[in-house]
């Protein structure tokens, strides 16, 4: 009824406008000229004011959208284009850490973390977690290789308001200290399709331009990767501030330290690392200890390429247990953006410039992939041979 009324009204409007707009407007204008004494000056004033307003209004919109003005700064689109240049387009998958598998489990807090943070997750008791193991890089079908960085996304108490999300790596430090460094390294790592290898000249030029990354790579070299996903230590790398009940802010970096050895990967298989993880989890749960490392005021707080001294105090906050592994699917951790800025009360971000950048680029990747057609993930848990 109502719709019908609106439709008819709309049609009447359109009809009237199309049939006799010009005549009506002409007549109207004549009347207006008489009535309001439309002077040349007032016409110019009106048009000038509208022009000035639209210039400022639409100019501001265009500037905020970066359609005009400086294009030298990095945007999330720069990163999206960078990933596409280096890895190609793989619709439906994350732009980085594209290859992965989903896990579920829980965290048993022993209460020790309360000393540093009032976050609910540190009160004694059990908290559910969902997570995703991944390999660095934008190719969801890449062959597993031990040297490729292993990622571990985790979300505590998903999807509650007190969530804690994180994206961890099996590295002792991060390779880059700035979004620009990450971007430059991404482009330098582009593989030549002929040789299958990155251009050594591009890499050495990158290291020359980014001594902080060269230093971080040297640190990483001293910590060779372990056998598999199950025996890797996954670290926050970035510093966060933990706030306890007394309001004390403590700089903290945290790591999940494995409590088991890893099943060795079968050589010659494409998904060797993932398959080994699947096989191992069929045999039982996997465990990691959550160690909170307490920083000192002089420790680097906003540069993830710099390690903290090894004698820093750690707090053992409890044990993470992963009970179940499954293929990426709608509604599981495939559809979770492990944005490191989703933090509970009691944990706050540091000034590390990587944090906002990761949040922004993850959001861009999430938006892009949620709108794309999906294809099956490379790691199909049910198809892994016993």
């Amino acid at each position, binding site marked *: 009824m109502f719709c019908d009324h609106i439709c008819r009204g709309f049609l009447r*409007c359109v009809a*009237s*406008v199309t049939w006799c707009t010009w005549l*009506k407007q002409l007549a*109207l204008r004549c009347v*207006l000229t008489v*009535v*309001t*004494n*439309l002077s040349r000056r*007032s*016409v110019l*004033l*009106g*048009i000038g*004011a*509208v022009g000035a*307003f*639209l210039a400022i*209004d*639409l100019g*501001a*919109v265009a500037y*905020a*959208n*970066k359609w005009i003005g400086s294009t030298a700064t*990095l*945007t*999330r*689109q720069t*990163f999206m284009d960078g990933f596409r240049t280096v890895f190609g387009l793989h619709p439906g998958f994350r732009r980085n850490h594209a290859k992965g598998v989903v896990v579920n489990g829980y965290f048993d807090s022993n209460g020790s973390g309360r000393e540093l943070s009032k976050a609910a997750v540190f009160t004694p008791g059990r908290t559910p977690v969902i997570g995703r193991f991944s390999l660095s890089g934008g190719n969801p079908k890449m062959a597993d290789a031990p040297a490729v960085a292993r990622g571990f996304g985790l979300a505590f108490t*998903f*999807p*509650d*308001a*007190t*969530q804690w999300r994180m994206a961890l790596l099996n590295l002792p430090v991060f390779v880059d200290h700035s*979004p620009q460094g990450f971007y430059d390294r991404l482009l330098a790592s582009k593989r030549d399709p002929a040789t299958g290898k990155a251009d050594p000249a591009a890499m050495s030029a990158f290291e020359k331009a980014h001594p902080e990354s060269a230093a971080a790579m040297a640190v990483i070299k001293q910590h060779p990767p372990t056998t598999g996903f199950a025996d890797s230590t996954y670290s926050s790398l970035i510093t966060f501030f933990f706030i306890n009940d007394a309001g004390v802010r403590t700089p903290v970096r945290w790591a999940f330290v494995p409590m088991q050895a890893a099943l060795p990967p079968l050589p010659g298989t494409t998904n060797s690392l993932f398959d080994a993880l699947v096989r191992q989890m069929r045999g039982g749960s996997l465990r990691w200890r959550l160690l909170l490392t307490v920083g000192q005021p002089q420790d680097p707080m906003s540069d993830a390429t710099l390690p903290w001294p090894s004698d820093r105090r750690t707090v053992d906050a409890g044990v993470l247990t992963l009970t179940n592994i499954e293929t990426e699917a*709608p*509604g599981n951790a*495939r*559809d*979770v*953006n492990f*944005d490191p800025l*989703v933090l509970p009360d009691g944990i706050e*971000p540091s000034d590390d*410039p990587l*944090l*906002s*950048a990761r*949040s*922004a*680029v993850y*959001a*861009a990747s*999430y*938006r892009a992939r*949620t*709108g794309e057609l999906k294809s099956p993930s490379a790691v199909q848990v049910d198809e892994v041979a016993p």
Partner: protein
Amino acid sequence: MTAPARYPLRTRILHWLTAILVFSMLLIGFAMVNSIGSYASLRAVHMTLGIVILVIVVLRAANRLTHRVPKLPDTVGWVEHKLVVGSELALYTLLLAQPLVGWAMVSATGKPVDVFGSLHLPRIAPFSADLYFILRQTHSLLAYALVVIIAAHVSAVLLHTLTLRDGMLSRMAFARKG
């Protein structure tokens, strides 16, 4: 009962408050999705202001029913009159829908909806990546619709006030002179 010459003070205050907030919000929204370094802080401001605007628009919609509207100048013909009514309705709809879509969109990602630093709002949509994408696209679409309709709204008032000199702006202005 004759129509008043201008809107009641409370309506004028609400109007200009909305104008400032919505203009800021559109710019913050466009800027934040292009910003790497300020994304996180702009997103927090954007979500908080979005809820503020939602509250103000609900108040405005309720307030709109409490009083008569000042008479439009004689320069407004019947076609334009229909456009005025239609654009007002469209603006109210957009201003109400946009924060709700934003709220639902964040809800659909499964992220907590935090405003004013640490006020947790309930999630108003289920966790669904497909739903998120539809809402996310809608959020952008509505933003551009707001840009267009606000530009038309301001241009029309400027033309009326400066070219036709019909005192259109004075209905919503604070100055004494009509």
